[in-house]
């Protein structure tokens, strides 16, 4: 095990800001993409359904 | 000249480049009257109409509105006048409704969305309300410009070939609109190369240039085109 304690872990030898900044933004980007995709898929389905009903009537 | 003449031209002359298009032109227009400007291509109809709007200045003579030279009553005149030229004056990026909204705003009028929508619907554009005008067909864009004209609520309409690109139904409709406008005491100055059925309308003809025009336009008896 590399880390003596959790605070050591978060500190990253003084580079915590840079390392965690990188990982946080990466996580945020990926999370955003996944969420947008999930939401978008649902929305597309619903919109297509609505359009279909509208076109048929 | 009678007293109730609203729009009048006095000894108008117009040159473009080194060409004299016309000179010593006089007329007076009373409420409820249509001035049909006729002439062949390039005889100076558009040039005359632009003089009447005040966009360009005559070489000689003057145009008067309610007895005053229009150069001096600029803004009151512009409030009562609406112009439709060869160009439609609508923005390609906006949809028809937005175009009308801004046309109203620029005239300093409040915008009545319901009325605008109704007008567009009457002109057969109900299905195009959400489309940018860029994708509309030639005739549909002309119709949007006509809708803007109708909403302007002006007394005097100056129309340069309003029928270009309109299909037969729209032409018939336009004839009805002109008739209504004149009946309500409005005035129209128009040019057109197409036949117009304007039975029962008080028409004054003005020939610009020296190309004879057979008497087809504004013939009092309905010809085939009107019967849509």
């Amino acid at each position, binding site marked *: 095990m590399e880390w003596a304690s959790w605070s050591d872990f978060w500190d990253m030898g003084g580079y915590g800001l840079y390392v965690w900044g990188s990982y946080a933004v990466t996580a945020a980007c990926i999370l955003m993409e996944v969420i947008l995709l999930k939401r978008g898929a649902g929305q597309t389905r619903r919109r297509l359904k609505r359009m279909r009903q509208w076109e048929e009537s | 000249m009678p007293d109730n003449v609203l729009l009048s031209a006095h000894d108008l002359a117009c040159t473009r480049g080194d060409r004299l298009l016309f000179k010593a032109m006089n007329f007076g227009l009373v409420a409820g009257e249509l001035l049909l400007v006729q002439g062949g291509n390039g005889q100076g109809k558009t040039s005359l109409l632009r003089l009447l709007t005040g966009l360009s200045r005559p070489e000689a003579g003057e145009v008067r509105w309610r007895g005053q030279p229009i150069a001096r009553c600029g803004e009151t005149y512009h*409030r009562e006048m609406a*112009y439709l030229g060869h160009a439609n004056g609508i923005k390609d990026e906006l949809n028809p409704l937005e175009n009308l909204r801004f046309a109203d705003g620029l005239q300093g009028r409040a915008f009545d969305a319901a009325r605008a929508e109704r007008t567009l619907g009457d002109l057969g554009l109900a299905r195009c309300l959400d489309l940018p005008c860029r994708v509309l067909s030639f005739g549909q864009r002309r119709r949007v410009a006509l809708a803007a004209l109708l909403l302007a609520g002006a007394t005097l309409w100056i129309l340069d070939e309003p029928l270009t690109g309109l299909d037969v139904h729209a032409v018939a409709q336009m004839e009805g609109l002109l008739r209504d406008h004149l009946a309500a005491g409005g005035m129209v100055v128009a040019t057109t190369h197409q036949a117009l059925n304007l039975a029962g309308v008080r028409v004054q003809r003005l020939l610009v240039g020296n190309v004879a025009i057979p008497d087809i336009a504004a013939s009092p008896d309905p010809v085939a085109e009107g019967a849509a």
Partner: protein
Amino acid sequence: MTRFLLAVLRRDLTLAARRRGDWLIALFFFVMVASLFPLGIGPDPKLLARIGPGVLWVAATLASLLSLSRLFADDHRDGSLEHMVLSPEPTVLLVLGKSLAHWLIYGIPLLLIAPVLGVQFHLPADAIGVLLLSLLIGTPILSLLGGVGAALTLGLRGGGVLLTLLILPLYVPALIFGAGAVDGVLAGTGAEAHLSLLGAFLILTLLVAPWIAAAALKVSLE
């Protein structure tokens, strides 16, 4: 009157929003020009900091210039400019509204992105502040003067160059005062003198330019 001004503003802003890209022009032009210079000149940070204010101000001038030629041209082509001039409201207001819209569309994004570019050029924080201030005062001048140029050159052929030639030198004072203010901070001589000159120039322009532009517009439409 106010309604008319607002209508002109709203219209131009809507059009810009509709053309989407359009308001991004200043941003991208700015960013790209700023990225091109290091590529052409070399990556030396000291050198970049030295020329930073000049580069950014030139880029701002160019970005506004690039968009100005279309200030009236599009409306002229589709006939809506005639309708606007024929409106019952005075043409000066129209010009003022369009210049203002131009500034909002092209000037503001410039202001927003300028700090980022300042960092890329290794400018210190106080210089970036003054850069922002100078752009805030200076870019409206560009829009107003540009309005005169756009009106004069509308639909003209050969005359266009000549008039552009006349208008562009008018930009020079704005550029010198603006870049000078930032340079002043870098050199430690302070920015006030330059900034107040810039402010005076703005007021002068505001008082004079719209009238000239309105007159020019009417002449161009005849």
